[in-house]
């Protein structure tokens, strides 16, 4: 929403400081109670035909336009691979804690469907998994057997994001497959090398071996947040290449100052569909568990793959 529109609305209410009043003078729970009442009154005025009209105009509420059973098969195949590689699949809540994405990462809350009762509609499952991991660690419900042990979780979940879609085939809500590895820094980039190698193994098993995607390759890019990201990239790449000659990796060590989402290393997974190279996966290190647990030794590697995007690409008629 642009500032001009907000200003216009505030003018109409005759309360120019309404936002300040609601966000600063009220506690989160008071604001929630107030908004619940506002929505309650507002909805009580709706008629059934009005509801239908709202449904027809709302781009977030429509079902997905694909063959559900075939898509579910693909989803199950992906989850089977995740589980076999010990990335324990999680059935996440449709909502996450309000601010899950924007508090710890440079994500705009306006691109997320904020909801009541301290929630937002899930916009990135890796953030929800990171919160779950931090909770498990802080409450002692998960403890590593040895310092290098990793906690591996996965999900295939429907995401909702509010920006208008500009690419053909993209939709306001879509399913993403996610992998998250959490561990601690044990020196010499050990966590980094192992976790990236494992994520790439899973993606290779998913796209190349299971879904028969063509020309799967990975591109590594340096990102800020590490003392020597070029060395990090080379160590990770060399570690993977020493084990697997069948996983093609290219490096892009040009510094990208604008991308502060990932720390040290970002990677992209690319496949070829009908002669065109398509970006089908993305991942890298993030500092979210460091922030949640206030411990700089925490490490977190995340990956996301376009499960629904892949299905749509493979089932395009032209």
């Amino acid at each position, binding site marked *: 929403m642009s500032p001009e529109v907000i200003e216009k609305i505030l003018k109409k209410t005759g309360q120019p400081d309404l936002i300040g009043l609601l966000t600063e003078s009220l506690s989160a729970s008071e604001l929630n109670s107030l908004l619940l009442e506002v929505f309650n009154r507002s909805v009580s005025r709706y008629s059934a035909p009005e509801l239908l009209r709202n449904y027809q105009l709302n781009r977030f509420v429509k079902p997905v336009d694909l063959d559900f059973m075939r898509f579910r*098969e*693909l989803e199950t*195949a992906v989850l*089977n*691979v995740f*589980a*076999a*590689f*010990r990335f324990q699949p999680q059935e996440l809540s449709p909502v996450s804690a309000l601010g899950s994405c924007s508090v710890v990462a440079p994500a705009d809350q306006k691109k997320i469907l904020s909801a009541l009762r301290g929630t937002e509609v899930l916009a990135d499952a890796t953030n929800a998994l990171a919160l779950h991991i931090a909770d498990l660690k802080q409450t002692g419900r998960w403890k590593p057997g040895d310092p290098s042990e990793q906690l591996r979780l996965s999900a295939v979940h429907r995401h909702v994001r509010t920006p208008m879609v500009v690419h053909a085939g993209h939709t306001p809500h879509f399913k993403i497959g996610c992998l998250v590895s959490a561990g601690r820094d044990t020196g010499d980039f050990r966590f980094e090398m*192992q976790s990236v*190698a*494992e994520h*790439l*193994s*899973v993606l290779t*098993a998913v796209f*190349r*071996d*299971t*879904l*028969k995607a063509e020309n799967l390759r990975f591109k590594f890019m340096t990102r800020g947040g590490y003392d020597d990201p070029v060395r990090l990239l080379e160590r990770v790449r060399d570690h*993977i290449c020493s*084990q*697997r*000659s*069948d996983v093609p990796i290219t490096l892009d060590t040009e510094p990208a100052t604008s991308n502060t989402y990932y720390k040290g290393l970002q990677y992209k997974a690319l496949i070829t569909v009908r002669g065109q190279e398509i970006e089908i996966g993305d991942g890298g290190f993030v500092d979210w568990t460091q922030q949640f647990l206030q411990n700089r030794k925490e490490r977190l590697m995340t990956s996301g793959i376009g499960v629904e995007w892949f299905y749509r690409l493979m089932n395009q008629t032209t």
Partner: protein
Amino acid sequence: MKSQVIYEDEATRYLKIAYPTAPLRPYVEYFFEVLQPATLSNPLYLTGLPSLNGLLCVVLNDRHWLSFHSSAPTVQSLKGSRFLGPISHLFTSIYPEGTHQFLVKFKPGMMGRFFGFPDRELENGQVDLSYLAPGEPIDDLLRELPDFQSRVNRIEFVLLDKLPNLKSDYRFELVQRALHYFQSAPGHAGVSDVSRQLPVTYPSLYRYFTEELGYSPKYCQRLIRFKKAYRLYKLHGSIYPFEEAGYTDFSHFVRETRLLTTKVPSEL
């Protein structure tokens, strides 16, 4: 793909092989055990070529593995001991954390005779051991034994115990004789030769094969010829005179490999 085919004559430190004692030789090709470590970042890939043999697979560790065939985008996540049926496609298995399996490789059509089901019902499939052999804790028996030789001795004992109950008839025996002929005759021996040798008409032979194995005699002959030739290819490369293995030339062998496996020999 870095997947590998393991052959019985490729001695590796990960593979142990033992051959059956005389009474079981008509039924069992061999026993083998694969103990191969792997890590999530460097998983083990094994390829299974199309095969008429059924396998009894006893899993000695408690790990999942993935299995998928060459053309369909489906994957099966497997765990635990199972009967593996004959396969008409290339199958690849991924063992993310390595594998430790003890296997019995039965001669075509024989596995089901021991356990009371037709092998053809398991074509391109697998089923949990306890489902088709309820009340027979074979995997428990073998898991608790300390080494490969003890497991061989124990499974031989189990199979020998079943031997007197094995049902056979003249059709099954004809099929076995035909398979033996394909296996031992020179590469150019065809289905018409075997019809003459047995002797049986081709329509009868066709019927017996499809009833007993689920495949035509021609397909079985092609598969046996391919596996013999592929072994020679692995040993000698493309310079081997493939006409001696029953092909017109090397290109013919390559075409046949592609037809049977969707890949060329060098990709296997």
